[in-house]
């Protein structure tokens, strides 16, 4: 009769209480228990070898391990192990215990659980699904993988892109060169080829436009702050150039124009070539933000200080708050001002 069958059956309630002892901590005990649970007929020496392979330091003797096995009713008879075919894992119907002895980026896992609880990705998947459905009738001949993805696949692949920066992966090739915990985080790992393909297919269905509503919260603030962010780009092809201010160079790149509301929530983003000045497209941009979010009052930095711009905003019935450039005035003498308020620190408004 196989040894394993003589053991009491393990049920969901059979996972033992792991109380840290003097020699073994809870995690070590759980790992040993898991290995024994998978193969109750495994000799203790082999169990210790397996534990050593998982790089969890355990300094106990075979005798000590045997005592634990007896306590957990996972001990085997003396003598050589029986035939492999005869030893069956106990309770193979359902895993009672899962131990991941080495888990990197623990906080990211907790954050992912929190996001799942909040259903944080539901709007994203809905937007992507909507974009796919909108793409189908306009491009009936298009037949690529994304069109056939289930929601679960869309979710997992987008999550892989989403969590990448938190895992220290910036470019997609990092998925091949960096050790990452996608397997424990999402239940499966991805290579850069899959995600590059996924991103390319998102590009085909114009997912950027479709994902904007996922950025907008249910309650948007009254004001939108707008600012540009330049990123340098290196290419051998002659490209349009602009002043990439962070590097102080005239070079190729891109200009992200990003809007935040007054609570700091990112609302909208649009990219422009670096040679176009913000003032050339800001009115159109604000129209799009207003359409997407309903915000009609904008705060923009001092780069925009023209009367023409104020008139354009006024014409659109938008509010614009800005700062006058220091070179445009000579202090108080440039204005006929009325005093409204004197603050405690002596500042006059």
């Amino acid at each position: 009769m196989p040894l394993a069958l003589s053991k009491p059956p393990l049920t969901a309630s059979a996972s033992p209480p792991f109380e840290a002892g003097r020699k073994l901590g809870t995690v070590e005990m759980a790992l040993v228990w898991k290995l024994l649970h998978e193969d109750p007929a495994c000799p203790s020496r082999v169990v210790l070898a397996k534990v050593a392979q998982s790089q969890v330091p355990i300094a106990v003797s075979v005798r000590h391990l045997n005592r634990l096995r007896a306590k957990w009713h996972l001990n085997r008879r003396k003598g050589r192990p029986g035939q492999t075919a005869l030893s069956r894992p106990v309770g193979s119907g359902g895993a009672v215990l899962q131990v991941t002895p080495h888990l990197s980026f623990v906080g990211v896992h907790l954050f992912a659980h929190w996001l799942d609880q909040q259903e944080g990705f539901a709007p994203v998947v809905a937007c992507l699904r909507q974009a796919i459905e909108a793409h189908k009738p306009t491009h009936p001949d298009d037949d690529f993988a994304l069109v056939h993805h289930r929601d679960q696949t869309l979710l997992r692949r987008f999550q892989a892109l989403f969590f990448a920066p938190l895992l220290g992966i910036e470019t997609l090739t990092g998925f091949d060169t960096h050790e990452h915990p996608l397997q424990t985080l999402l239940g499966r790992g991805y290579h850069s080829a899959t995600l590059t393909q996924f991103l390319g297919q998102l590009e085909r269905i114009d997912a950027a436009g479709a994902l904007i509503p996922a950025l907008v919260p249910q309650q948007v603030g009254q004001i939108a702050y707008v600012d540009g962010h330049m990123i340098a780009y290196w290419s051998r092809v002659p490209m349009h150039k602009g002043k990439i201010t962070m590097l102080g160079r005239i070079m190729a790149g891109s200009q992200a124009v990003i809007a935040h509301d007054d609570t700091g929530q990112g609302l909208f983003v649009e990219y422009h070539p670096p040679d176009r000045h913000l003032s050339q497209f800001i009115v159109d941009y604000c129209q799009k933000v207003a359409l997407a979010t309903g915000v009609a009052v904008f705060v923009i930095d001092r780069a925009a200080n023209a009367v023409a711009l104020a008139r354009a905003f006024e014409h659109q019935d938008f509010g614009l708050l800005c700062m006058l450039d220091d070179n445009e005035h000579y202090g108080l003498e440039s204005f006929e001002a009325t005093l409204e308020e004197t603050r405690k620190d002596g500042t006059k408004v």
Partner: protein
Amino acid sequence: MPRADDPRHFVIVAPAEGKTLVYWGTPRVKAPLEPTAWPQVYRERSARQENSFKRMIDHGALNTNYGRKKIIGADRHQQRVREHLDQALEAAQKRVEKQGQKVKTQQAKVVESASKGHGKRLEQRQRTLAVLDKALTDAQHKQARLAEHASALGPPGKRADRDFRKQTIMTIRTLLLENALRAFMVVLLGTLQTQVSLECILRLVFERSGTRIGTSSEVVYWINTTGLSLPYRRLLAEVVEGLCAMDLRAQGKPIRVRLRDMPP
């Protein structure tokens, strides 16, 4: 001097020391915001955007380029230069014509003085003619130089723009991540007594390794504390308590978070 049809309203802040700051807004801004609040609202721009950009660069890969596709189009730089040169050429042409006219008039005056036998006036007019001649030559020279520049520009060129579609998708990803992290921090800070920054949480909790044990009734995450100084360990312990208080769940099972001291 107030400009005609200028819709701007100004709010001037004159601090006791330092330079005067001038804010302006269109009339629509006055409805939701009192003008005296404008400086404060404007100042918050740094916290809302500049700092947000720094955070997104740091842990959101905002500065990473995605996608290599390029769209070849007209060379806008060349177009701008050409427009500028065309304007300059037009102005130079007018100047040459004007100077030519002046020279002709002056030449007529010189001829008149010579025929009438003027002495001193002839000399004055000849001197003025010389000056005008030089100005005409200069204007012609400038026009020729501009024409040379214009012809050197050659036929309309081509220049590439980036295809920003992938970049936009990934920036939206970054914004979604930043929004989610902000919301997570709001909930976490609600359970803590100590003020902790997002950067600190990322280093202290997100990037730490540990262990996960899942049983039939709960999931336990152990966070390694190896290498942490005592103050940071205390802070991590408080954060762990806060995480437990957030009532996190994995597939319906409660999540517990614990610290794990590993041997060095």
